[in-house]
């Protein structure tokens, strides 16, 4: 569900929203043929959920989530805001990975901050991506020669670092080298 800066939802403007009544009808017809009123009801909820809560809207929501990234230990950045915005991607698996990798290089600033500065939207996509998948770069390169991987970025990442992160993740995603959490 898209949430505007004023906090109001914009589900009605989503491309899939207009399809929802049609989906209800089709689903109801199928369910009724099977004779299960209960399954029709639960099916309606599922279809409506899918129609409204799309990955597009979840990604848009990332831009407006307020909170701060803190760095309790090296390599870990915890978000103090509403983490459900990041967690929501988990159930979409590979589909979410593809979409989130695609937005890693978005340079506009999000509402969330790190060290009193706003993070790039690309970093919000990275934070969500890290909830869904991880890549064990140390299994694919000599860690003593190359002890890091461009696909892992801090919340302080610049637009250039995020562009490099996207390039690194595109290789990993295209070859399906990552693991899902």
């Amino acid at each position, binding site marked *: 569900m898209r949430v505007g800066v004023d906090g109001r939802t914009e589900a009605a403007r989503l491309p899939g929203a207009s399809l929802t009544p049609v989906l209800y009808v089709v689903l109801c017809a199928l369910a009724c043929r099977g004779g299960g009123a209960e399954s029709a009801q639960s099916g309606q909820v599922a279809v409506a959920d899918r129609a409204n809560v799309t990955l597009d809207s979840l990604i848009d929501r990332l831009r407006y989530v307020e909170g701060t990234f803190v760095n*309790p*230990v*090296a*390599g*870990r950045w*915890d978000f103090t805001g509403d983490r459900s915005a990041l967690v929501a991607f988990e159930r979409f698996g590979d589909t979410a990975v593809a979409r989130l990798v695609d937005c890693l290089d978005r340079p506009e600033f999000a509402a969330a901050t790190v060290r009193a500065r706003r993070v790039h939207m690309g970093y919000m996509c990275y934070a969500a991506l*890290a*909830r869904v998948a*991880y890549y*064990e*770069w*140390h*299994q*694919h390169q000599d*860690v*003593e020669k190359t*002890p*890091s*991987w461009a696909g*892992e970025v801090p919340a302080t990442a610049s637009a250039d670092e995020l562009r490099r992160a996207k390039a690194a993740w595109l290789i990993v995603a295209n*070859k*399906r*080298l990552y*693991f*899902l*959490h």
Partner: protein
Amino acid sequence: MSAGHETDLAGVDRDLWSATVRASMEMRSDFGISSGKSNRGGTSAHNDGRAIDINRVDGTRFDDMDASAAASLGNRVAAEIVNRLGGRGMEVFTPGMAFRLDMHLSKTSSLNLQGSHYNHVHVSVRQP
């Protein structure tokens, strides 16, 4: 023991699997396994089932735990497994430490590997 939907546990090295199960029993905890045997190309120890990744304990993800709790619990999980491997342990990367038993890691590598494992424990074994 619980496994992610794409996790092949049947192909995990027998010693590693046994050590992981016994560690889980010793800790009276459910380990959530995010990766066992899985072909990811390259030289990954996961390719032939010689590595296992644990990303949750008793249903809670390491990245949902307080950082110090994740480090402490991750180290305990890894230690309980490695101590049951009879010397076959190779890579031990957790939210709280990172080292290899078969080679020395530089401080930079070690810190980066630990940072990369803030959300899971990775243990691998040498070839039998």
